[in-house]
């Protein structure tokens, strides 16, 4: 009986680990998609409406689907407005360091970080151009991430179960 419980626990744990691993692939795709929508929104706000970043971040906070991301952008909107005394670059960097973006790869973060260095500091044409470049590069990363996701999600799930089963067979 004890062996049975142990076997269940091992298989359950490894299967769960496999699902978590698979979930991270999907989460990265979801976050990249979310960033692409945010960048489109920023581009429109900057290029066509000349809205200031505090208002734009506030609107992004209302736009994003997840409460945690909304909180991040609300905080960024407050931080970038008069009175904070902090630079946009600094605020953007802090926003990207939040654990909410853990599923993003370093390459994704670097692209976004680079945008943060220019955000708000040049004329609107340059801002739109910089956002376009950022979007194109993120889109490439998303394409790769989706391909990777298709390939690896199933493998992760099954391998989690398989590793657990193999361990049980070896142990018992």
């Amino acid at each position, binding site marked *: 009986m004890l062996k049975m419980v142990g076997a269940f626990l091992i298989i359950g744990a490894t299967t769960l680990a496999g699902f978590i691993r698979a979930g991270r692939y999907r989460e990265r795709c979801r976050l990249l998609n979310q960033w692409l929508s945010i960048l489109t929104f920023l581009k429109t706000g900057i290029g066509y409406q000349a809205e200031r*970043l505090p208002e734009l971040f506030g609107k992004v906070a209302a736009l994003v689907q997840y409460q945690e991301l909304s909180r991040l952008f609300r905080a960024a909107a407050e931080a970038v407005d*008069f*009175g904070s005394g902090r630079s946009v670059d600094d605020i953007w960097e802090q926003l990207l360091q939040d654990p909410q973006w853990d599923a993003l790869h370093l390459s994704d973060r670097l692209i976004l970080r680079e945008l943060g260095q220019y955000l*708000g500091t*040049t*004329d*609107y044409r340059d801002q739109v151009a910089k956002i376009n470049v950022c979007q194109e590069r993120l889109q490439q990363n998303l394409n790769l991430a989706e391909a990777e996701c298709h390939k690896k999600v199933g493998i992760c799930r099954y391998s989690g179960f398989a590793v657990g089963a193999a361990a049980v067979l070896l142990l018992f």
Partner: protein
Amino acid sequence: MKKWEEMTPNLPTEIKSSWQQVLRFFPVDFRQILSGIGPKIYREISEIRFRINQPLEVVYQKRSMWVASDGRLVDSPEHAHWLRAEDIGKIVNALTAGSIYALEEELTKGYITLPGGHRVGFTGHVVSEAGRIRLIRNISSLNFRIARACLGIARPILPYLWKDGRFLKTMILSPPACGKTTLLREIVREISNGVAELGIPGLHVGVVDERSEIAGSFQGTPQLDVGLRTDVLDACNKGEGVYLLLRSMNPDVIATDEIGAENDFEVLEDIINAGVSMIVTAHAMNLTEAMCRPGLRRILERGMIERLIILSSRSGAGTLESVRAGVAGPELLRRSSVTEEPKC
């Protein structure tokens, strides 16, 4: 004729802008430096100037002074806090809330308006396109001009601007920085709110605020008190703005700043023909100088102006030289200071 001093024993000058409100626009390190300035001093600071590789300057009691790193005002630049290029970048970033692109149009005019009506002038490298300024980049100097309301300064002049139940067509003449716009704003506020003692009912005033100076609008909302019945067209050129107001807002009085261009004559003529009164300002040292400017001369010679207020800075900004009944009319009020020290 009464003397101005007899009529202004104690003007209710209200200093609305607190130093803390001003400091919040700056980066933390400059906030610390400027917060070292004592309350008695900051009430009389009208400008804070920043220049790359130069010391931090304030205009205190109309005098240029340097600011030390601990906030003391010093006469010698060696003891002052010196600014680097990064400092200017940080300050520009803070003053624009990290959104320079959103202020491109204002930057081409050389200034931006902040909440509270404060204005920041910029100089730097000008990028032109088709002969017009497209933007100013590599900003090298900043002038933060602190906006302060001077409530009550127009009250003694108002009886001269109101006759037979109507507001007379008025022009304020003065050289730059003599308080024209401040007086204009106060007159607008008073006639918009109405002055029961003088029998002035609240009038609908339309303001065409081409350079956001009269109402100090930030994102279209007036930051300075321009009265209860005032409609402000912000950052709109006079020509278009006046017609828009006449068509849509049915104003009793139209107010606008700094007229004097050749085509302003037609604009003012249209206001008058529409049965609307007006109050305008213009740059000129005195009436003689005004008559030398072709645009102004045309307006003045045609008798479009019923009251002429002439200001100077002889005894400080806002010194009233005279109030005249038009160009050829008699002098109704003689020289004095519109505001008492400390200036608002």
